[in-house]
């Protein structure tokens, strides 16, 4: 797994995707930070964290689009799948590499808080809770993106597909409101990524939400492994 992890991180910076992702992430979070906190002279960063939710919808697919689709297209998957490693090691290596790049971005939001702390009192627990929430949300989204990437050889389709999948997970809460059947509506509400993420930005650290995102990540990674497995049989 470490071999894959190292190579992936290298590849992010060899192929510019890492730089593009981080630049966009820093720019997005920076704009949100100045608009929602600096302008009001406030150290409350919840505005930035809730705004980042929408930025991730666009950015995460860029991070994950080439993970498995590019291997398939370049036929390097033949090297990986015939190497003496398990499929889960392969998928986890890719997942953690993307998560580390993403984590660099999330760390930057904490740097903003450090900067803000020079000018006022920062509620560190809230900021850390927010950062952890953002990390967990990203982990789940990355797993979704990797799964979509395993379905196609085309990076662009992987990116758009990933965006679409994340959009559905985001909108599922709004869809729930117009569904007349109560029990379906409540299932949809429970599954909504945005309503699970929102409490973090209010400063509420609910372990059920933590568990939700971790489970979502595990489920989508598991599906990715099954998709790769299935491809050998078709």
């Amino acid at each position, binding site marked *: 797994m*470490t*071999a894959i992890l190292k190579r992936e991180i290298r590849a992010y910076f060899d192929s510019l995707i890492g730089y593009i992702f981080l630049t966009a992430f820093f720019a997005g979070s920076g704009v949100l930070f100045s608009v929602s906190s600096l302008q009001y002279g406030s150290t409350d960063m919840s505005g930035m964290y809730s705004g980042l939710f929408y930025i991730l919808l666009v950015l995460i697919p860029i991070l994950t689009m080439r993970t498995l689709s590019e291997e398939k297209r370049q036929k390097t998957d*033949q*090297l990986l799948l015939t190497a003496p490693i*398990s499929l889960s090691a392969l998928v986890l290596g890719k997942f953690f590499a993307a998560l580390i790049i993403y984590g660099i971005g999330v760390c930057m939001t904490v740097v903003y808080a450090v900067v803000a702390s020079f000018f006022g009192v920062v509620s560190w627990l809230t900021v850390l809770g927010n950062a952890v929430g953002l990390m967990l949300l990203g982990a789940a989204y990355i797993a979704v993106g990797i799964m979509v990437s395993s379905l196609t050889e085309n990076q662009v389709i992987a990116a758009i597909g990933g965006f679409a999948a994340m959009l559905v997970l985001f909108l599922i809460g709004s869809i729930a409101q117009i569904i007349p059947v109560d029990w379906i509506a409540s299932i949809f509400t429970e599954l909504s990524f945005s309503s699970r993420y929102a409490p973090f930005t209010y400063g509420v650290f609910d372990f059920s939400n933590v568990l939700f995102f971790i489970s979502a990540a595990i489920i989508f990674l598991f599906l990715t492994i099954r998709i790769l497995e299935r491809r050998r049989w078709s």
Partner: protein
Amino acid sequence: MIEVKNLVKSYGDKLAVAGISFKAQDGEILGFLGPNGAGKSTTMNILTGYLSSTSGEAYINGHDILEDPIAAKKEIGYLPEFPPLYLDMTVKEYLYFVYELRGCTLPRNTHLKEICELVKIDNVYDRRINNLSKGYKQRVGLAQALVGNPNVLILDEPTVGLDPKQIIEIRTLIKKLGKNHTVILSSHILSEVQAVCDRIVVINQGKIVADDTADNLSRELTADHKLIARIDGPKDEVIKLVQTIPGVVSVVADLQRERGVWEYNIEAIEGTDIRRELNRRLMSRNWYILGLRSSELSLEDIFLKLTMGESVTEFLADKADDLEERYKEEGDNS
């Protein structure tokens, strides 16, 4: 050792591999010969665990590739049809990655250095793979298969895209490797497998049509009915004369080799030996044969011969009867 039992792979309705069984012993170089789409690559992909078989079993040194894939894969070095290279890496970075990926324990730098010297890529060690020529890329692919010194090497068309000098080098290398590895290599070129392999398995449409030593197979497949003759005599008349020999299907003057001496490709019906008759007739006209050899069977001929079996003989016998009748008629007319 590689053992394959009744391997079947189907893509939907299409059978890509239809019940293949064979064994490759330690230290043996086994050649897979077959036209494109015969199932060579599919079989190799199953052996290496890239694809799963629909049914049947494959064992690599006793490890079932489906039941115990990691142990089996540890034993295999695989060069697929398209070398699986990360183009944005240098050769060094790539081989380091493969070394780690395969979980090697050999001393890294000396081991990789040995491999690079063996496949002669040490002079491009620090260059980006993207900038290498096709031949070098192929060799980096081969180097990758050798990392970790696996017992079994599976090479899918290893000489494709190389120039003649490189082909000879790679063949020599494979022969050398064959002494202490089990090697399976595929090719659609008969002379290549003949040159390198101890044993040849011929595959067509997913089935094994022949499995024999290279010598036996080529003996069986020599073509006495296709001759290349160098004849001293006037070209057009020689052609006319040779055409009248019973059994001759076609005569083509190929090239003028010496003044007045042409080389002719003479094809007769399979199973007929026209050499004596050719000699006799030419002698009667005072023309001379300066050289006579049988041409090698082309791959198409081999497949025709191996796959159609009896029906080919029947088909050709019919053709011979037709010809004889025609000659008779011509004889009656004159």
